[in-house]
């Protein structure tokens, strides 16, 4: 393991807050690392201190004990003009400005490099254009930032970090407030940055699906500390399950997904093959039924060229339905009687 590949590391770090007379330690003995070309997802339940950790990494909050090292150098030894060339930070603060173009916001990422008045050299312009292109914002570049959607605004902030051209990008919940497709596209973009440009990206998220599927390394923050490793390692050791399971929620190591824990279920016999049958089973599970070949209640899924039909046989009564919804609601009515 080559140490020059380690972009960020913490050694026995304590994080927390310092007020006038008190010091509150949120978490201590944190020893973590993140490497060049790695996508690191910081996950954990609300209130565990994810923001505090990220902000301590970039120097916005003081190290209350231990050390942070960026590119091998201790954080406190890095000058204030050198630091922004090493790490960029995207926070959760909303942008509340008008009348400033997307391009100009991205250009502010070149702040550490520009002259006293902020003029952009051709190199700076190029970095800006590249950042806009990578985030798919070229067509919106001339629009004012208050004139675009939330997702586009989020991408603008990411483009800004990109334009800063740092080896390390730290992002606090970059996918918050975004719809599903946008969330996926952001994570895919981050993935690209690490793979194609060799950057190290550390980001916090509540989006467990994408984190587990796309991240190279997970930092899982619980009340006791941080567990670190590849997503699969953490699933294997049951760490993910332990961190997130609850009486209502169960984690399947097999599929790597969460599902609701269902209460006592009635038996139902299900016959059929294919996608329609699998989906029918899901719907029946949701409504409190479990597959039991011996059950007196029986559902048959008939797929034909004219469409799909559901046949319910209860004792002597037979009913036909044309959609899963109809099937399920009538079963529900029946069970009430």
């Amino acid at each position, binding site marked *: 393991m080559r140490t020059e590949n380690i972009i960020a590391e913490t050694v026995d770090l304590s994080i927390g807050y310092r007020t006038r007379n008190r010091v509150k330690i949120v978490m201590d003995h944190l020893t973590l690392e993140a490497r060049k070309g790695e996508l690191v997802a910081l996950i954990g339940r609300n209130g565990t201190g994810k923001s505090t950790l990220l902000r301590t990494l970039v120097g916005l909050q003081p190290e209350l004990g231990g050390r942070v090292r960026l590119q091998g150098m201790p954080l406190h030894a890095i000058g204030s003009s050198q630091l922004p060339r090493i790490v960029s*930070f995207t926070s959760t*603060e909303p942008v*509340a400005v008008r009348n*400033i173009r997307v391009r*100009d916001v991205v250009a502010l*990422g070149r702040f*550490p490099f520009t002259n006293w008045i*902020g003029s952009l050299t051709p190199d700076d312009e190029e970095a800006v254009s590249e950042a806009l292109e990578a985030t798919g914002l070229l067509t919106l570049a001339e629009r004012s930032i208050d004139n675009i959607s939330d997702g586009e605004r989020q991408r603008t902030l990411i483009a800004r970090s990109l334009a800063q051209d740092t080896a390390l990008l730290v992002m606090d919940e970059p996918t918050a407030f975004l719809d599903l497709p946008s969330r996926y596209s952001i994570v895919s973009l981050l993935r690209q940055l690490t793979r194609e440009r060799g950057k190290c990206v550390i980001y916090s998220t509540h989006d467990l699906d994408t984190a587990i599927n796309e991240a190279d390394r997970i930092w899982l923050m619980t009340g006791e500390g941080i567990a670190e490793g590849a997503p699969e390692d953490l699933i294997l050791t049951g760490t993910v399950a332990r961190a997130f399971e609850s009486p209502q929620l169960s984690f399947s190591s097999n599929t790597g997904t969460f599902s609701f824990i269902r209460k006592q279920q009635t038996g139902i016999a299900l016959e059929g093959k294919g996608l329609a049958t699998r989906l029918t089973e899901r719907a029946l599970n949701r409504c409190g039924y479990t597959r039991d070949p011996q059950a007196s209640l029986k559902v048959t899924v008939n797929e034909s060229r004219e469409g799909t039909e559901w046949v319910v046989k209860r004792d002597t009564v037979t009913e036909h339905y044309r959609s899963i919804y109809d099937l399920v609601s009538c079963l529900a009515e029946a069970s009430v009687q």
Partner: protein
Amino acid sequence: MKGRSPRLTLTMAGLILLVALLFVADLLIGSTRMDAAEVLRSLFGNGTPGGEIIVTQFRLPKAITALIAGAAMSVSGLLMQTLFRNPLAGPDVLGVSSGAGLGVALTVLTLTPVFTLSAGSAMQGWGIILAAWAGAGAVMIIIMAVSARMRDIMTVLIIGLLLASAISAVVSLMQYFSNEAMLRTYVIWTMGNLGNISYPQIRALALSTAAGLIIAFLMVKPLNAMLLGETFSRTVGVRMKRTRAILLASASILAGSVTAFCGPLAFIGVAVPHIGRLIFGTTDHRTLMPGVALCGSAVLLLSDIISTMPGGGHIIPVNTVTSLTGIPVVLWIILGRNGIGRRF
């Protein structure tokens, strides 16, 4: 500067032209009847002795003062609005005007004036001005000390406002115990005045305004970064404590100097930056700062012209005019399309 559109250049040029026109108009329009030819002759030393005195001792100093003071107060307001991220912030938010008022009150409202200067000295006529400067300077030092100790800029804002209120209360107390002549002198000072300023005083005002404006313009880059929030600014390399101190100093120098010479000028600092944003359609301080300065000059020159409108030798005090024009602007901010506080 790459990226500056022809529209911006055109607007700036148009504004410069407007300021020049208003300057000339302010010279031509006054409380006494003088035709344009006579005014121009007086400017070049060819007018009647009476006319020359009117133009060179009354109208020209007034116009120059309006030009300088308008720019200074507006830029001071712009700095405050960006620093505090508050569209209603203005130079008086720091209590600098109140501090100046306290200095003047100590000179004018007490029976044994604190700042009497011997009449024969070279500093004659500067008594009130120096007192106001000292008061403004004292407040500036207090605010900067507070800012150095407080993490949150909002705390500084609140303390500035409280300081302004406290000083006002003290001055009210002093007014209560003073006699009519003193009261009238103080009250008239608070109405703002552009006329009673001699050329040496104009020089001093110009110097301090130039200093303040230069410092302010050197800060455009961090100001632009601050538009995106304090967290962003810090992570991109802005040294917040130092930047804050410089901005507070610059704004105080600009507002304090103007208040010392002209009394507290109302609303210019709050309203003009918004006019600037409206005209230029940008929040980029590289354009906005010179733009706002020009707008401020234009607005104050216009206010001076309007103040002589009643005619027949009667005038409206300049603060009344700036308030009456400033209040609609502030209302427009609050009731505007996007509402206050949601977008800045």
